[in-house]
Each structure stands twice: as structure tokens, then as C-alpha cells.
């Protein structure tokens, strides 16, 4: 899942044996509260998600453990993908709203 040995891992999935696909811990490398907290907010706004949280396991390592538990057997990668898309759309809308008044005043 993490790729060849020489390539640095970006995203890993850790699943407990026997648990269904709905309870997964994702390990996001080279990330901190910046993406962790904002992504957690977007995923929590999803009604299918029963639990969502993230931890920085040790401050010297720049990676976060991001846990998602879904309701109704939905695979956990789905709210993750949807949260990332929604966060990206929010940023795009913020960017458009920010640049609009500035283009008028030029």
C-alpha cells in the first residue's frame, strides 16, 4: 500500500483484523494540525460518519493518525475522499470570494 521501498509514504491505511471496512485509521505523512483539524471538521459534517478524530502521535514526527468510523457499512475511504473534495471546494470558493472585491478596486 505504501509503494516501493525508496519512495516516501504519503498515505497509509491501518485496519484492525476482523473489523469491517468502515473503521479505518489513516496515517497521513508530512501533515499536522493545518490539514488535520480542517479535514476533521469537514468529515464530521458528514451524517454517515459516526466518529472522526486525529492525533499527532509524537511532535517530533510529522505524521497524523486520522481515524474514521462510519455508520451503515460504508467504506471509510469514501467520507475521506468526500471530505477532501469538499475542503478543496470550500477553499476554491474562499479564493473566488477574496479575489472578487480586489479585482474591482484595481
Amino acid at each position, binding site marked *: 500500500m505504501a509503494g516501493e521501498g525508496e519512495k516516501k509514504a504519503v498515505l497509509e491505511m491501518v485496519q484492525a483484523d476482523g473489523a469491517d471496512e468502515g473503521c479505518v485509521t489513516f496515517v497521513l505523512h508530512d501533515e499536522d494540525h493545518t490539514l488535520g483539524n480542517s479535514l476533521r471538521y469537514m468529515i464530521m459534517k458528514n451524517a454517515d460518519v459516526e466518529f472522526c478524530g486525529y492525533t499527532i502521535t509524537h511532535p517530533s514526527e510529522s505524521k497524523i493518525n486520522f481515524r474514521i468510523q462510519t455508520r451503515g457499512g460504508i467504506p471509510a475511504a469514501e467520507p475521506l475522499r468526500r471530505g477532501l473534495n469538499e475542503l478543496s471546494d470550500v*477553499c476554491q470558493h474562499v479564493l473566488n470570494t477574496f479575489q472578487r472585491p480586489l479585482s474591482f478596486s484595481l
Partner: protein
Amino acid sequence: RPLGKMAARMENVEEIRNRVILGEFGVTNVHTTDFPGNYPGYDDTWNVEKFQKNFRIDVVHLDENSMEFDMVGIDAAIANAFRRILLAEVPTMATEKVFIYSNTSIVQDEVLAHRLGLIPIKADPRLFEYRNTGKEEGSEIDTIQLQLKIKCSRNPRASKDSSDPRELYLNHMVYSKDIKWVPIGNQADVFADCCIGPVHDDILIAQLRPGQELDIVMHCVKGIGKDHAKFSPVATASYRLLPEITLLEVVEGEKAERLKQCFSRGVIDLEDINGTKVAKVVNSRLDTCSREVLRHSDLKNVVKLGRVRDHFIFTVESTGILPPDVLVTEAIKVLVAKCQRFLNELDSTAME
């Protein structure tokens, strides 16, 4: 704290959802609680239309070095992400390698190199690339070369009994204006119109006396604030929540005068109604929320202090490398790139 009293009273619910309360002994209601399922009767699922309808940005002040703008209708998690990115993840160019050919000043080599690294360099980082790790030699696409060559000498025209160093010596103060850009490769053509060099001319780097000299070459590379604070493009970037002051009863006369003194100037004004002065909240945005009013036993039950949880007043001060509105734009793009990176990773592993 007795939770039973606070829970789910109709008048309270709106306040719990939208306001941070500043109490006498602490700040309450801080965290976002409007997630689906927390409040019966409210649909808190993410709704793009509702967000886009409520969201607005008002630019209050903008000049070449700083800007103040309001971001309304967004959550603290995302506003904080923008603040963190402005401080640590928007790239700039700064001096990384300092080649000291001659330093006979009293400033140590490493102290001098440290100071040179902190000088902001006016070069648009979007026109450069990151230097690949392990690559020792810089090329024209990832390096800016600067030179500082200065020698202090005695001023032959100084009067014999002067004791002012400005008269006695030439070049005894080394300023950032003495740093010259040395174009490499095709940089002279590409950057012909924009002068690359330190943002400010008057940063004092070192002091010299006659006979001392500096002969230094610097290589500037692209980096981010997370790696070293010299790469941070902002002097600072911060936000505060919009304060909200509500008067729970009518306050008149001398009490109103004392109430006015408890807040920052311009927040509370005294209106003349039928001969008596009555206090009125005019502009709560100016308040610094010192909670001074809660220190007076007869005034503390008259006001309710709070902050609006989704109204952020951002202040961005640039170091001069990029204008502040460009910095905010770049910060938002960095967050989009972060999301994209994980979306691509999810897509590539899904196809395996």
C-alpha cells in the same frame, strides 16, 4: 458546572451554537458543536449552498505592506489552517549558503551568516523552483546569488579633533543596501525589469573600523517557514473573533460614565435622552475584550460579553516580499494543493 441548567433551553441554543462567552473566570462555549446529530431539530450536515450564501469577505484595509479583512461564515478549523499556512507554508527566497571569503570584522562568521539569512529578499518565489536535496551546485532556476564586498577606511578629509565615527570613517556601517545581486545564467534577461535584492535598504548588518573588511557571497534558495523562520513571508498573520457586547439593562448617569471607561475608546457612547446620559454600544469591533467591566461588582451583571464564533478579523502584515493580498491567495492555494495530494494518492491506490 451544572450541565442540566444549560442544556437545550430554547433561548440558550442559538447562543451556544453561535457565540463564545467571556465570563468572569473563564471563556466558555469555545468549541464548534454544530455537527449532525448534536442538536435535535437542526440539520447540520454540510450544505454547500448554505455555506456559499452565508460566506462573505470584507476587506477593511489594504496597502502594500499590511491588510485587514473580515472572513464571515467559516469555521475556526479552516480559518486557523489559513493562518498556519501564512506563517509556515507559503514559500519565499532567503539566503541559505553564505561563502565567507574574508571577514575581519568583530562579528563572528556564524553570527554574520545568521543575520544575513534573516534579511528578506525581494524576489518572487513563484518564479523559482525548490533546489533538489543533495544537489550542491545551484542553477539559475533555483538560486539567487548576492554579494557583499565592503572595506572600511579612515576618512582623509576628517577634521583632526572630531570624535564622530560618521566623520572619521568611510563605510563603517554595513547596511543591507550594500548587498548587490549577481545574476547567474539567464537571470539578467528574465529579471531585467525587477530589481532583485534586499527588501529594505537600511538594515544594519555589521559595524567596521578601518582595516576591517567583508567579502561574502550568498546563495538564496526557495524554502518554507516550517523549515526555518527566515522563509516566513509574513511579519505576522493573526486573527481575532468579532466581539459582541450586549447591555442587559438600561445604564444611566454616573454608572454609564464608569461603564464607558471599562471598554476601549469608541465602543460605548453616552446618548442624551430626556436630560440623562444613557449608555449605548456603538462599535463593539473596536473592543480589545479586556473584561475590565467584570472587575466591578455593580457593572458585571449589566453586560454580556461574547464573541461571534464564525466572524474572523484577519490581520496580515507582509515582510515586503509579496503584497499581503497575494500572500492570502497563495495560502489558500497551498491548502487546495494539500487536499489534491491526498486525493491523487487515494485515486492511485484505489486503482491498484
